[in-house]
């Protein structure tokens, strides 16, 4: 209440300033009057009494000032006055303000953008009830090594025996279905979860409900919020309606919370069905009774008051019991409880990446801060006289300091706003990077409230850091010099200045950044020219999944054959084929192989597996070296396969493999041909052994989870062709959902995402750094010129020619640039060594980069020095000397 009254009175006083002053006046008046009365009562004469009373009271103005100072409002008012003064001052120098705002803005934007990644993947918790008491459950092996998925019986056993967990749920990460309900059937990714999933998560459904305990195998479905919005227009009436899911009739029972995407922050599932439905939706549903197949992700809710450690201890006891009961399967395994929102196996790599990029972003901010500090220092130097005058008129240092700091805080705030705007654009651009994988992932980032807070704090820190030193120095000028209008900060005899050091720091850091961006750009170019082994253009692809439409393997073979034949008939199509996976999709299927009668393979025996139809090698453009390709094979004949050169080198040590048998576990393949090497998972990888098998022969036993991609080599208009292809596929079966339509060019672009991402990031950062450094150097040089105007005038009066003056100024600036190069080059080389694993076909000590970048920097520095030096050479000696 006291506070409230104080605020109210203060505001009243501020509002009615004149009234308050009158009040004080009146009170003083009466004080004086009473005092005079009293003194006269004691016998003084009127005149003496008045004089004595006046002496007692002292200056009316001082008293008034003191009374005002007793409340907070006077401080607020001073602050307000300072603020107004500062804004007026800043408005008068728009050039400086723009450069400062842009500098801080770029620095803050770089950091805020990186932080948006941290915010989304490391800090944000899913929209579930009390995420703090949720843990993710994984299986350990070899006495506690992390981490595997969970077999279903383990989930049930733990759920049955635990005292410390109130519920244990499990889910299958991603399952595709063909979903009806729109104009065309659509393939959608979702998750299959145990019936207690939404209960354990305590998720507040947008509409409807989660699964009932009895719905372990029921045809019910919960739709994701986004899918519900996009496909069903956010109509809550969909709840309770039937929906066609891969040819089965499901009932929509609920809509998931907004933003809910399961518990993984990277995957992007759009629906949830009970785990028991999985065999209906995919032919490869793992055996739910197996204690060996580790196919589920687990999530559990801790009982109130139970810590994760206590629960983990109980898990040891339970799994110990299970190991005794099921020694074949459970021995040496355990169950670990991890913090929710962990990225699991990828967490360490993700954190490293974010850390590395954060360091780079901080470097940009540092350059920006140095720039701002430099500009403010120059500003401060020009204001020496003003400061000195104010000091000698009775202003205190603290007052000057406060006002100067206010100025830099104001600038920082503006910079923060610019930074947030820039990073909104940057996160948008960053979100357009896609991974070349055929599953649903969400890597988009945006500026959320955490990013806003971060940007605000960062810009405030930047403002204080940049503002403090200049403010400190500006507030203590060398008085006599300053009053005369002379350079009051110059400390004669110093061969370096703070400002010079700042510029050197800037140029050094931007050299390091630019070298890195040079390396990554060269790497991107060479990655784009890496021979992937197949034709990277002129192919269009779209996928279908007969398994989602209840095709038997026999019918699927027939259907794929007729689709392929229809494709060949389209105008512009040269050849067509079908495969289960496109190369460079970051890993498809692979398995261990052995070749009977051959010595141990050179290196690992893991072989990349592709299923193909006739004309595959012709369509994708992989040359066959010997033997034949895969034709329209008889499903019941012995299985045939084509292998690549690396396979021959590894398993046959260069001997002719044709006619030999290679075993995938207990499945034998007869090798009928050898194809040239191709890149299989990523562009930068070393060659991997590849085995191509026939779709006809393998679709029954080992169907693809990603569907089958129809691949067409063509000439002509892409969009017309894709429309024609879709038309032909629907002519075969109108119910087929078509997905992942893309061209090989687009796919290659996505496949280059890593070098592209890193290259773009560093180029943006590097260029920003150079720009800032150039501005910094320019600022220092033009300040030097204006400071030395008199000296230059004397020199010219004594006969120095314009060219000589100009070269003197340029030399001074270039000395700073050369010092920076001498420091920066070794640093850049050291930093480049750290990037080795991210480079494709470029050495970390790439000569082109390390000669071009310094030359570029020198050129930029020359321009930054040359402009002010021109001004110096135009100094009129008479005018300069008359300045005295």
């Amino acid at each position: 209440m006291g506070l409230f009254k104080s605020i109210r009175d203060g505001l009243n006083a501020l509002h009615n300033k004149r009234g308050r002053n009158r009040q004080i006046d009146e009170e003083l008046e009466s004080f004086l009057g009473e005092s005079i009365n009293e003194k006269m009562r004691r016998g003084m004469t009127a005149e003496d009494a008045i004089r004595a009373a006046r002496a007692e009271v002292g200056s009316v103005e001082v008293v008034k000032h003191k009374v005002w100072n007793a409340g907070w409002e006077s401080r607020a008012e001073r602050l307000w006055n300072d603020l107004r003064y500062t804004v007026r001052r800043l408005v008068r120098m728009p050039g400086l303000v723009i450069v400062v705002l842009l500098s801080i803005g770029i620095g803050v934007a770089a950091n805020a953008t990186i932080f948006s990644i941290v915010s989304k993947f490391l800090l944000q918790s899913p929209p579930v009830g009390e995420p703090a008491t949720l843990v993710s459950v994984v299986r350990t092996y070899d006495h506690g090594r992390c981490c595997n998925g969970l077999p279903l019986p383990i989930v049930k056993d733990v759920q049955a025996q635990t005292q410390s967990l109130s519920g244990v749920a499990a889910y299958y990460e991603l399952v595709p279905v063909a979903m009806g309900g729109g104009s065309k059937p659509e393939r959608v990714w979702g998750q299959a979860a145990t019936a207690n999933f939404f209960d354990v998560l305590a998720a507040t459904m947008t509409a409807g409900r989660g699964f009932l305990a009895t719905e372990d195998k029921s045809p019910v479905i919960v739709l994701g919020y986004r899918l519900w919005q996009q496909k069903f227009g956010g109509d809550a009436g969909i709840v309770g309606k039937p929906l066609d899911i891969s040819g089965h009739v499901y009932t929509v029972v609920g809509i998931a919370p907004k933003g809910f995407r399961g518990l993984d922050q990277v995957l992007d599932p759009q629906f949830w069905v009970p785990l028991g439905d999985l065999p209906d939706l995919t032919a490869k549903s793992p055996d739910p009774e197996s204690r060996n197949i580790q196919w589920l992700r687990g999530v559990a809710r801790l009982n109130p008051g139970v810590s994760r450690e206590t629960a983990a201890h109980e898990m040891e006891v339970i799994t110990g019991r299970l190991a005794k009961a099921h020694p074949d399967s459970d021995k040496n395994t355990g169950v670990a409880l991890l913090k929710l929102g962990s990225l699991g196996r990828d967490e360490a790599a993700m954190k490293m990446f974010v850390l590395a990029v954060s360091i780079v972003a901080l470097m940009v901010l540092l350059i920006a801060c140095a720039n701002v500090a430099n500009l403010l220092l120059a500003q401060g130097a020009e204001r020496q006289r003003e400061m000195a005058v104010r000091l000698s008129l009775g202003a205190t240092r603290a007052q000057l300091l406060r006002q100067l700091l206010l100025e830099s805080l104001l600038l920082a705030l503006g910079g923060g706003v610019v930074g947030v705007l820039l990073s909104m654009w940057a996160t948008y651009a960053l979100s357009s990077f896609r991974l070349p994988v055929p599953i649903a992932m969400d890597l988009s980032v945006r500026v959320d409230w955490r990013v806003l807070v971060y940007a605000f704090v960062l810009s405030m820190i930047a403002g204080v850091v940049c503002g403090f030193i200049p403010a400190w120095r500006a507030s203590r000028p060398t008085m006599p010099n300053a009053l005369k209008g002379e350079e009051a900060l110059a400390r004669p005899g110093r061969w370096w200045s703070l400002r010079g050091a700042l510029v050197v720091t800037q140029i050094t850091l931007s050299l390091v950044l630019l070298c890195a961006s040079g390396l990554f750009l060269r790497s991107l170019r060479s990655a784009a020219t890496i021979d992937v082994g197949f034709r990277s253009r002129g192919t269009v692809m779209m996928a279908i999944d007969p398994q989602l439409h209840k095709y038997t393997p026999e019918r699927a073979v027939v259907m794929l054959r007729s689709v392929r034949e229809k494709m060949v008939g389209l105008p512009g199509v040269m050849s067509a084929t079908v495969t289960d996976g496109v190369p460079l999709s970051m890993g498809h299927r692979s398995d261990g192989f052995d070749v009977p009668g051959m010595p141990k393979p050179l290196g690992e025996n893991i072989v990349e597996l592709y299923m193909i139809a006739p004309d595959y090698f012709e369509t994708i453009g992989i040359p066959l070296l010997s033997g034949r390709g895969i034709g329209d094979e008889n499903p019941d004949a012995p299985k045939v396969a084509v292998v690549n050169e690396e396979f021959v080198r590894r398993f046959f040590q260069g001997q002719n493999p044709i006619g030999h048998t290679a075993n995938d576990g207990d499945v034998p393949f007869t090798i009928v041909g050898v194809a040239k090497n191709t890149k299989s998972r990523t562009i930068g990888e070393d060659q991997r052994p590849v085995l191509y098998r026939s779709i006809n022969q393998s679709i029954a036993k080992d169907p693809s989870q990603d569907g089958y991609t129809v691949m067409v080599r063509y000439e002509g208009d892409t969009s017309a062709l894709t429309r024609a292809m879709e038309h032909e596929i629907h002519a075969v079966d109108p119910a087929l959902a078509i997905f992942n339509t893309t061209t090989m060019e687009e796919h290659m672009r996505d496949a280059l995402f890593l070098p592209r991402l890193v290259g773009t990031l560093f180029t943006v950062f590097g260029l920003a750094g150079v720009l800032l450094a150039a501005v910094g150097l320019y600022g220092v040089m033009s300040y030097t010129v204006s400071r030395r105007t008199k000296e230059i005038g004397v020199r010219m009066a004594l006969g120095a020619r314009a060219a000589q003056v100009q070269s003197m100024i340029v030399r001074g600036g270039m000395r700073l640039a050369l010092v920076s190069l001498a420091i920066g080059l070794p640093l850049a080389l050291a930093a480049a060594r750290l990037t080795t694993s991210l480079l494709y076909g470029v050495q970390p000590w790439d000569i082109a980069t390390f000669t071009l970048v310094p030359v570029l920097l020198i050129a930029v520095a020359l321009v930054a020095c040359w402009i002010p030096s021109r001004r110096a050479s135009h100094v009129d000696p008479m005018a300069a000397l008359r300045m005295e």
Partner: protein
Amino acid sequence: MPDQPTDLIQGTLEMLVLKTLALEPLHGYGIALRIEQISQGAFRVNPGSLLPALSRMERAGHVKGEWRATENNRRARYYALTAKGRKALQSETENWGRQIAAINRILEA
């Protein structure tokens, strides 16, 4: 004749004002006069410190100000103690007593 009047001991002004007002409401000069009289001229309070103190105390809710006519028929602001001020006076007096006792103990040791 008493020694030259001295400044108040730091931080005691508000306590003394509260004590003065405990008897009856007074205006600014009345407070100054009362303090000077009771201290037999040892303390003299000038308006430069009294008025800001009164303003602070009014803000804090310890006293309540009111315009009234004085016996000399002059408009003046009279200050009266509030319940909160009475409490503050009590706690400050106790505090002061403790401090004085402690200082005395140190000086006599």
